[in-house]
């Protein structure tokens, strides 16, 4: 038995290595482990099996930040991969690095593989496309925040689980009812800046930053202290004070509480669906992210989080041909539909969404179509295309700090957001200085 396994392994090693010698190798550095890592590996295998000229090799380099760092360090050492997965927050950093990247639209045009950027949903494509319409990186996994509802908790508190939760006004009433009905944890959230400021701004069609949220120039300033945002954070602060909104941390710590059935409402990425579905021992459903009735132009559309694939500079033309074929493969609707259905990430091409619908997936898994509808309900405006801000990781850190001051009752919403703007702007000026 053992010998046979060994022989088998030996044979397959030979087969693999001879294959690798014949074919051009394409390195892809990514940030996925677990289930997502397996699905990614399947995509690579499928591509490698489909042709014999190129072999894509995937390497896991840690979380999003670590992967970006690994890519940057490798570039400085002249050892960069062909394809690097970068989270949406790093978009401005990559865009500014003109000599380090090959824009996807150029790679695709030169490589000659079939590719139609317009196949991608506007709100997804827009995030990674210049104002002139050139796609710089290939959207890979994208999600958007939605509202998860623990129906059992509503029933236990004597509320109708089918009640309308499309506006924050209604959510406020639900929170009152939940609290009165003895619920200890009426509302939790993940990724507070992304959900409650970045997406809230887009959803109400008010600017998060000037210059079309940074798309139109590096001389952008934060505008997250506008009346719509302040009113929302003020309401959240009041709910925190009344123990209706429970703060659990800067990342998605609240997910554990919600999945364990401890909390009634949870604002989190649509990509949290797989986890909730796997773990929740209660009846849940998914609603669109609430908006404030009468504020801004809500509902506009929400924006994405997730990552895109950047092609790094400094390799041979032959290798870029392989890259273009692989990216073309990734954007095909079969691959996209499968990815969407397995992960809860958005169907990022229109075709993949239609295919998923035609296959009856949405009927079998109610709620999974909400995120897509939320993204595509209206054509994106300058306020809802996305964000392109330098040093955005640090700015999110500042926003986290200021929001914590509101949740703790140390600052009112206006003071906290004014301070976030002032501190964030200082970082934006630094980024402008570094990339002029």
């Amino acid at each position, binding site marked *: 038995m053992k010998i046979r396994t060994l022989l088998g392994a030996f044979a397959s090693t030979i087969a693999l290595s001879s294959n690798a010698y014949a074919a051009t190798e394409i390195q892809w550095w990514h940030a996925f482990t677990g289930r997502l890592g397996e699905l990614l590996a399947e995509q690579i295998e499928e591509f490698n099996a489909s042709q014999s000229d190129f072999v894509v090799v995937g390497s896991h380099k840690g979380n999003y930040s670590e992967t970006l760092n690994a890519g*940057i360090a490798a570039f400085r050492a002249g050892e960069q991969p062909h394809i690097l997965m970068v989270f949406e927050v790093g978009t401005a950093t990559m865009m500014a*690095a003109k000599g380090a990247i090959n824009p996807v639209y150029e790679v695709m045009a030169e490589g000659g593989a079939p590719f139609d950027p317009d196949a991608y949903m506007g709100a997804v494509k827009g995030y990674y496309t210049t104002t002139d319409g050139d796609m710089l990186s290939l959207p890979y996994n994208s999600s958007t925040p939605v509202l998860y509802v623990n129906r059992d908790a509503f029933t236990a508190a004597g509320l109708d689980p089918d009640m309308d939760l499309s506006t924050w006004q209604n959510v406020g009433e639900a929170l009152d009812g939940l609290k009165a009905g003895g619920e200890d944890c009426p509302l939790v959230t993940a990724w507070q800046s992304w959900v409650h400021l970045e997406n809230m701004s887009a959803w109400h069609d008010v600017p998060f930053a000037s210059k079309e949220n940074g798309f139109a120039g590096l001389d952008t300033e934060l505008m997250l202290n506008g009346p719509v945002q302040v009113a929302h954070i003020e309401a959240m602060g009041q709910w925190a004070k009344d123990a209706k909104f429970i703060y659990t941390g*800067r990342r998605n710590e609240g997910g554990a509480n919600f999945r364990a059935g*401890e909390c009634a409402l949870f604002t989190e990425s649509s990509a949290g669906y797989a986890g909730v579905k796997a773990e929740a021992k209660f009846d849940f459903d998914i609603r669109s992210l609430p908006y404030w009735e009468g504020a801004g132009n809500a509902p506009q559309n929400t924006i994405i989080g997730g990552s895109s694939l950047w092609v790094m500079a400094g390799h041979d033309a032959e290798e870029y041909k392989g890259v273009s074929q692989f990216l073309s493969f990734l954007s095909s609707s079969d691959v996209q539909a499968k990815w969407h259905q397995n992960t809860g990430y958005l169907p990022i091409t229109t075709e993949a969404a239609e295919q998923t619908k035609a296959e009856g997936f949405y009927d079998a898994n109610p709620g999974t179509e909400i995120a897509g509808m939320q993204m595509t309900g209206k054509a994106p405006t300058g306020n809802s295309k996305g964000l392109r801000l330098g*040093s955005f990781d640090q700015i999110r850190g500042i926003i986290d*700090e200021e929001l914590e001051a509101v949740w703790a009752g140390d600052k009112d919403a206006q003071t906290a957001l004014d301070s976030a703007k002032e501190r964030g702007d200082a970082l934006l000026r630094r980024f402008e200085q570094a990339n002029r």
Partner: protein
Amino acid sequence: MEKRVTFKGWLLPMCLLMPQIIITAVFFFYPAGQAIYQSLFIPDPFGLSMRWVGLGNFEYLLGDPYYRASFVTTAVFSLLVTVTSMGFALYLAVLADRLIKGSGVYRTLLIWPYAVAPAVAGVLWLFMFNTRVGVVSWYLGLLGYDWNHVLNEAEAMGLVVVASSWGRVSYNFLFFLAGLQAIPKSVIEAAAIDGARFWTRFRTIVFPLLSPTTFFLLVVNIVYAFFETFGVIHTITSGGPQQATTILVYKVFSDGFVSQDLGSSAAQSVILLVIVGALTIVQFKFIERRVHY
């Protein structure tokens, strides 16, 4: 009379010193020099361009009230970590020193936590004190105490101090125990015969004779608290809530390695280097005078 051994010629002494000099040059002088050089620029992350700003990075940092506030946070944090880890280690060492049976087992067990990397230690403590699912916070809840380090600044500070001190207790324990065992038993026995109780003996004989060890550990632990604790902060609080646990070295790490602001990060490490250098000089000048070798 002092006895001096001198070498004839310079080749042998140079050869003997070389390994240490090379290691210091490669792993200390070169990176420190690079940090000073880089602190005068705003580079882009990919190393494609460097923009000369002179002392601009320092002006930017020192003009930021939040950065200045983290000096105080760092002082409080370092003091607490040093006092906690040394005090507890000394207590355990004194107890272990008095043991007759089974001392080997205790010593081995007490040394184990030193093998745990700071970031991993952070995760362990975070699990225990997780506001919802942590064992300790659950028991605290039974006692009617609502543990919430994600919003309570004092609790967050307490948690990172304990997590940073824990592994350090082992290290300090080893040195204290060795120091205690080096004290001649005859001196202590003589004092005991004279009627000195345990506490008097400790205060007047043991602690003064232990002072070289204590001084060494003081320097080493302050350096540890200043430089090596970012892993714990990163895993437990990320510097929050608000800025309650943003210590200087954590900011160096997060600005440089999370946010790719290498100019600012380099300037911060230069500032940190100056502070710790100054602190060590102060310690040698003023505290070492009270040390009896």
